[in-house]
């Protein structure tokens, strides 16, 4: 069997003495399209940072294509949450994509023409070539996400990690967006953090629930008890989901 792109074994991580993740095991392979769901503070972002080598696990091992996460991070294309980035920053879509070509070991402007060509090709593929010269702040939420995906793709990754990519996109745009990911999934593995169970259940192949531990579901099924463990509703909250998912009849969750 070929080596998995990411191999996480028995990983634990604590932040200021508080356990964020424990006993996490996960393998990501080339054909995977995984949705990662879980409550806020459940450790989703931490797990992403561990995979990217930005954090080191307290226990356990993370391997990216057989290498340490720090060394392997160049094989992972990372698409951060839109809200974290400064929208008034003076930078064009093209220059954001070119950031993916940044290599601190290479100095000077060598290859910059071919890099531009490469960036433009990727933008074309994402139907964003017409916006290459626009400032990032002038684009819509969905367009910005495509630019960030293009930036991740020019690094020629084996795996695309997306952190809540649909947060600033409307419902129609979200469906288009997941179709795009489905298309990309023909070549590379995709792991997407998302809260939107409805969209997920239609496009992804498997679901990873992260709430300190990690539960892996080999199908994109969303079960009632999964929902209850992942999103325990208190009395004060309204149950958010009128749920449509494969294998589950159309149902409304009962009050807890």
């Amino acid at each position, binding site marked *: 069997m070929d080596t998995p792109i990411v191999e996480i074994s028995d990983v634990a991580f604590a932040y200021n003495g508080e356990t964020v993740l424990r006993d996490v095991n996960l393998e990501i392979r080339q054909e995977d399209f995984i949705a990662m769901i879980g409550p806020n503070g459940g450790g989703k972002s931490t797990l992403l940072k561990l995979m*990217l*080598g*930005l954090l080191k696990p307290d226990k356990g091992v993370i391997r990216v294509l057989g290498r340490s996460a720090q060394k392997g*991070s*160049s094989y*992972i294309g*990372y698409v*951060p949450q839109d809200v*974290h*980035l*400064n929208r*008034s*920053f*003076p*930078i*064009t879509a093209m*220059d*954001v994509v070119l*950031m*993916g070509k*940044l*290599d*601190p*070991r290479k*100095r000077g402007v060598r290859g910059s023409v071919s890099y531009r060509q490469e960036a433009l090709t990727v933008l074309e593929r994402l139907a964003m070539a017409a916006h290459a*010269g626009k*400032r990032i702040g*002038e684009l819509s939420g969905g367009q910005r996400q495509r630019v960030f995906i293009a*930036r991740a793709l020019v*690094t020629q990754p084996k795996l695309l990690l997306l952190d809540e990519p649909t947060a600033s996109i409307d419902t129609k745009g979200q469906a288009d967006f997941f179709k795009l990911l489905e298309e990309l999934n023909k070549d590379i593995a995709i792991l997407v953090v998302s809260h939107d169970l409805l969209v997920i259940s239609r496009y992804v192949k498997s679901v990873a629930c992260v709430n300190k531990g990690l539960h892996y579901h080999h199908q994109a099924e969303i079960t009632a008890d999964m929902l209850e463990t992942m999103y325990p509703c208190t009395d004060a909250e309204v149950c958010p989901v009128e749920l449509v998912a494969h294998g589950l009849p159309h149902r409304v969750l009962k009050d807890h």
Partner: protein
Amino acid sequence: MIDALQLEFMRNALVAGLLASVICGIMGTLVVVNRIVFLSGGIAHAAYGGIGLAFYFGWPYLVGTIGFSLVAAIVMAAVSMKAKHRADTIIGVIWALGMAFGIILLDLTPGYNVDLMSYLFGSILTVSKMDLLAMLAVGVLMTILVAAYYKELLALSYDEEFARIRGVPVKGLYFTLIGMLAVTIVMVIQVVGLILVIALLTIPPFIAEKHAKSLMQMMVGSSLLGAIFTIVGLWLSYTYNLTSGASIIMVSGIGFLISALIEQIHLPQKADNQTAAETIKTAAR
């Protein structure tokens, strides 16, 4: 203005102002996009502690001020990296302590009294040839550094996490940036004064940011704006016999207000009409 340039001190003042504009245009762009204006203010004020040290111990002026500000800047940068939510408080503390420390040391230095006003507003009209050369050297060195690490600085400023994943030595680069900032601030302060440095670090980049499409454009735009403010300010100060530093700052402030007003007027159209946004840009150029 032309007859004013017959006077050597006016010529020197103009050159000093233009040099300061370019230096602050480049550094100010990095300061504004990295949101470290407050940290820059902290460095600029804490540098006064260095002046106190230099006079009290009889060290050369630059050794005292640059040394002290570098230490203060590194401490502030370390704190702002480690504990982001506490950064502004700690910077405020170092800001105040540095300044007080400097004043007390000057009190204790027998027979010498530095005028606090000249530290705040500078003495651009008494700039010497040596000062100009020192500023030029710092300006050239800084420009070379920024040009050599432009892509890395861009990545660090826009998306630190991504920069780190791409293998940019983010920590080292950030401390280098802060160190460079400390040195330039100290060099420029002794020529044009603390208040003018803060004004030139913030106002031109703020205006330029809205119309620039890259950090480079923002740096060039800020430098040009700073130069215009400096020339107009000096001319006003010469014609109406006003304090030069303060005049330049007032002109910059008016520029700031006009830019904010233009944005307010055009803002409603900008939301639904991209071409309106384009028109503002061309108009502003």
